[in-house]
């Protein structure tokens, strides 16, 4: 799949923002006054910045509000609702902390649950697609949630919790890197099932329908960068493990900032691979799979 920068930034930044909201909602930390304002501003910059970034890949962003209508069947619509609900609840919860120096505990827990659900909603946009076997797997939502919790706890300064969560996220990512390559073949999609010509013999794409490229090839048969996939996987894992080492060293703000940057770079690399390595079944028709 085409690794569009707007979508990579959307999923990574909003994941981080909603991850921070989970911990703010849980009261970890529970700042008040101007401190609370800074914490919440940070969470909103990431979450809303990510959501705004996602609109850059739309063909007609002026109609984006229509995306709230089909929550009964569409994960993209559900994600729009969940993020709007979360941002509203957390704004009220944050206003209590900033202006009234009051913590509405139950509201915070509700906001944290909604933030978690939002991240799950984002992940299901990809995990629901049977056409991309690499994504159509329970590890996809698990991975999105693991990154939101690890990044959120890191930004929230919950060092001991974050160490465990970052270890879990890195381990899960390693598991995905090791196991996801075989999923396409395991589903049994071949050029023979795609064309139903397998009863005659072995099928080979002889001539494509068009001499140039098209939307399908650009969007779903992306090939660039796969030759460096293994190196990038190692780089991503090193960047994901680096914050754990940096946080285990004697605490300093420089090391903490380094940990956040390394984590962000690691998630961005892993998310780029999430798209670039994902193979859509339509590639079969062009002889570009298997």
């Amino acid at each position: 799949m085409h690794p569009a920068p707007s979508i990579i930034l959307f999923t990574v930044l909003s994941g981080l923002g909603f991850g921070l909201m989970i911990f703010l909602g849980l009261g970890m930390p529970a700042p008040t006054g101007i401190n609370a304002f800074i914490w919440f501003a940070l969470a909103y910059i990431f979450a809303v910045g990510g959501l705004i970034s996602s609109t850059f890949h739309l063909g007609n962003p002026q109609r984006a509000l229509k995306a709230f209508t089909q929550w009964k069947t569409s994960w993209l619509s559900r994600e729009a609702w969940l993020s709007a609900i979360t941002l509203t609840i957390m704004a009220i919860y944050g206003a209590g902390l900033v202006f009234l120096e009051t913590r509405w505990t139950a509201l915070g827990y509700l906001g944290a649950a909604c933030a978690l659900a939002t991240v799950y909603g984002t992940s299901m946009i990809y995990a629901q697609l049977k056409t991309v076997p690499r994504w159509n797997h329970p590890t996809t939502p698990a991975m999105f949630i693991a990154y939101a919790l690890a990044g959120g706890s890191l930004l929230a300064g919950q060092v001991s919790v974050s160490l465990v969560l970052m270890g879990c996220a890195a381990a899960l990512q390693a598991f995905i890197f090791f196991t996801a390559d075989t999923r396409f073949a395991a589903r049994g999609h071949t050029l023979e099932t795609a064309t139903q010509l397998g009863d005659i013999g072995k099928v080979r794409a002889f001539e494509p329908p068009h001499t140039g490229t098209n939307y399908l090839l650009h969007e779903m048969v992306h090939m660039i960068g796969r030759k460096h996939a293994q190196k990038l996987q190692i780089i991503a894992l090193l960047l994901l493990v680096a914050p754990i080492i940096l946080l285990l060293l004697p605490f300093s703000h420089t090391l903490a900032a380094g940990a956040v940057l390394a984590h962000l770079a690691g998630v961005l690399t892993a998310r780029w691979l999430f798209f670039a390595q994902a193979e859509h079944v339509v590639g079969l028709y062009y002889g570009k799979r298997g």
Partner: protein
Amino acid sequence: MTELPTQTEKKLGLVIDLDTCVGCHACVISCKGWNTENYGAPLSDQDPYGAAPTGTFLNRVHSYEVQPETGPAQLIHFPKSCLHCEDAPCVTVCPTGASYKRVEDGIVLVNESDCIGCGLCAWACPYGAREMDQDQGVMKKCTLCVDRIYNENLPAEDREPACVRTCPAGARHFGDLGDPDSEVSQLVAERGGLDLMPEQGTKPVNQYLPPRLKDDYTNTGEIDILAPLLDPVAPDAKGLLGWLDKALEKL
């Protein structure tokens, strides 16, 4: 709405005969023509006369080489457009309700004024049947020429999809696949029509008729009923020719 109807009154669709298709791409051109000049955003081209032309098409013809275990390879032309699936995954993922499946005839359509151009429906389709128009930013797909098939301003013989009307080989058939007595259903039953990528569970309405068994030029044996008459009539030569034949054999 993006909830799929549990049942449609008709299942309008295409039956494509892979035995008959000659790969002329006339259906591609007539589709592009009709759907550019009529309903909805025109099917735009980018850099059409330049070095790297691209464009939006609702129907494309692939060509595949199939190699049987014995005998020569076969070339099979393979037109592909929206299959108007009963369990259309492109419809349910749509966040705006722009994509829908009609209850009255089962046609899957896009309401372009509601489409935000997110592209998720194209990702959900296993067949590559949906293409985002790069000029208008809305999703385009086969409408089964919904603006022809019910159009009383057209002569009766033109009230079928443009691709079917134009096919010079008669490889494309249009009708109600939900009616077991319809001509298309009879054809599917007779020829063993197939679903593409059935393991995706989309239940396509469009059906593909597999190529019939081909003649094989490597067959030995009788090739002509006149062949026996061409057998040599004087196998044992006599006289001078007989002597020459024996002499040459001995060399």
